[in-house]
């Protein structure tokens, strides 16, 4: 499990962020005592540090410089200071990323993942997803299935929208994904569609899956959303 050190002086954010990261499968540590952060950090040996700038005693910039001397872990600045100058300063002091509060949670999680991957601390995510006999290739944008009768692999090419929808459903396989959550996920991937377009895309996706021999792969849960 990857260890994330949260250096944040607001207790509510500290607790909620720890909870969020625990739920996401990380092992967070959020010290409430800011006396000797570099020593604490060195002892904990985190894989990633989330660092606020406005801290009691010293600011995040000088802390970043001290941390850099002791440990190699990537540092993401998470701060409410959003001026361009602060960002330049943070990055030039050895920060790996700069996120401004209030952040959207999916964005924060994605950027944590990206930084960890860039540092080689996680394997690149597989671009193949599999569920219920269907194989989704995220880079090629195709979905394929072994047909039961001829034992031959059949492949369908998906559009960008269909691909993201199917990927989102597969990532939450078995769970009910509400239409709103689905739309939000798509928007996070720069696909700005409305409710009607989602329906159209789902219908097309079902058509393609049906041709592969999976007519009822995506189930509609009336009033709740979709489920695989």
């Amino acid at each position: 499990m990857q260890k994330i050190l949260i250096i944040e002086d607001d207790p509510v954010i500290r607790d909620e962020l720890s909870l969020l990261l625990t739920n996401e499968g990380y092992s967070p540590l959020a010290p409430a005592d800011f006396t000797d952060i570099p020593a604490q950090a060195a002892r904990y040996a985190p894989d990633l540090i989330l660092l606020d700038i406005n801290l009691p005693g010293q600011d995040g910039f000088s802390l970043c410089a001290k941390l850099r001397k002791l440990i190699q872990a990537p540092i993401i600045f998470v701060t409410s200071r959003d001026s361009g100058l602060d960002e330049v300063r943070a990055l030039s002091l050895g920060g790996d990323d700069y996120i401004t509060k209030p952040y959207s949670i999916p964005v924060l999680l994605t950027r944590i993942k990206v930084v960890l991957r860039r540092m080689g601390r996680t394997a690149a995510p597989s671009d193949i997803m599999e569920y219920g006999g269907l194989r989704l290739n995220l880079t090629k944008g195709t979905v394929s299935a072994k047909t039961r009768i001829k034992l031959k692999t059949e492949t369908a090419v998906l559009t960008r929208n269909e691909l993201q929808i199917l990927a989102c459903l597969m990532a939450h396989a078995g769970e009910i994904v509400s239409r709103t959550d689905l739309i939000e996920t798509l928007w996070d991937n720069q696909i700005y569609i409305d409710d009607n377009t989602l329906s159209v895309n789902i219908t097309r996706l079902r058509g393609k899956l049906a041709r592969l021999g999976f007519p009822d792969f995506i189930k509609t849960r009336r009033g709740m959303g979709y489920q695989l």
Partner: protein
Amino acid sequence: MTVLEFLSDRLNSLLLQAAFASLSILFLLATGTQAGVVRLLSLVWLLSVLCIETTGFLRLRSHLQELENIMEGLDRKYLFSECIPKSRSLYERRLTELFCRAGKSMIGAVSDAQAAQKEYREYVESWVHEIKTPITAAGLICRNAEPDTRRKLSPELSQIEAHVERALFYARAESPEKDFILRRNKLSGIAAQAVGQHKALLIQSGVRVETSGLEQTVYTDGKWAAFILGQLLQNAVRYRSADSDPVIALSAKPLGKQVQLTVADNGIGIPAHELPRVFDRGFTGSNGRVRGGSTGMGLYLCRKLADCLELDLRISSAAESRSSVAGHPQPEHCPNCGVTADHNFITASGTAVTLTFPAVHSSSD
């Protein structure tokens, strides 16, 4: 200064001298001085007065001209009284002293006002940064709330965020030191940032966002540009039409060396007579009055920030049921006309705002 002005200024003394001279002539004639002598004396008197007044006039004129020139050359006009040469006349010296005192108190007031404005701006900025912490905390707590509460609360939170953001940029735009950084930015990144910030609002309002041609690169401050774009998105949502599915189209195209970004919607549009005033501070227009909740600040801020970034900001619109030429903007408000015509979905009404980014001088970073 004209001769007439000078004469009218000297009228009292001239009249007095004339009266005194006439009386002297009468006295001299009465006491038996010869008329020829009196005539000679009057001539001498007249000539000397003429001479003195002429030199006086010329001297005064050149002095005034000199002062004018000093004033012209001054960058900060209120420092004038500090810069003029010391005069030989006692009266003028005293006057200058008085004006110097007035000027000093004015300079004090100006620098006080500047300091106060700077302090206020710094306070607003730090306040905005402080308020963002509880907003972030609320967002994190909201995530764990019941889905129903979450769905209702998250748009409210992003509303708070939007208002806070406006306050921050207002403080920034009004202050003399503009701390933006011009960097190489992809339009798609700026658009994603703006749309991401208003995601909750856009999704909740059922808006579809179409993008095209956003792979252009521009030199600008990404945050400022995203803020401007965000204001335009919010406006498009607020003034969407009830009759049709709301669509916002973000499209960009190169315009010579410049890049033109168009934000077009199919909303209710703006009446033609209100168009010239939409960028005024506090102008809400008939749409704003009918719907309420308009502050008249959004577009004003856009214009201010666009001016700082040297973006050319233009708006064109066709209002619902008012315009006889459907879907075509008024030519006088849209010199780059043809923009809305590109978007064939605008059939009845809508607004298009174009942002023209300045030319990129070098292609390398």
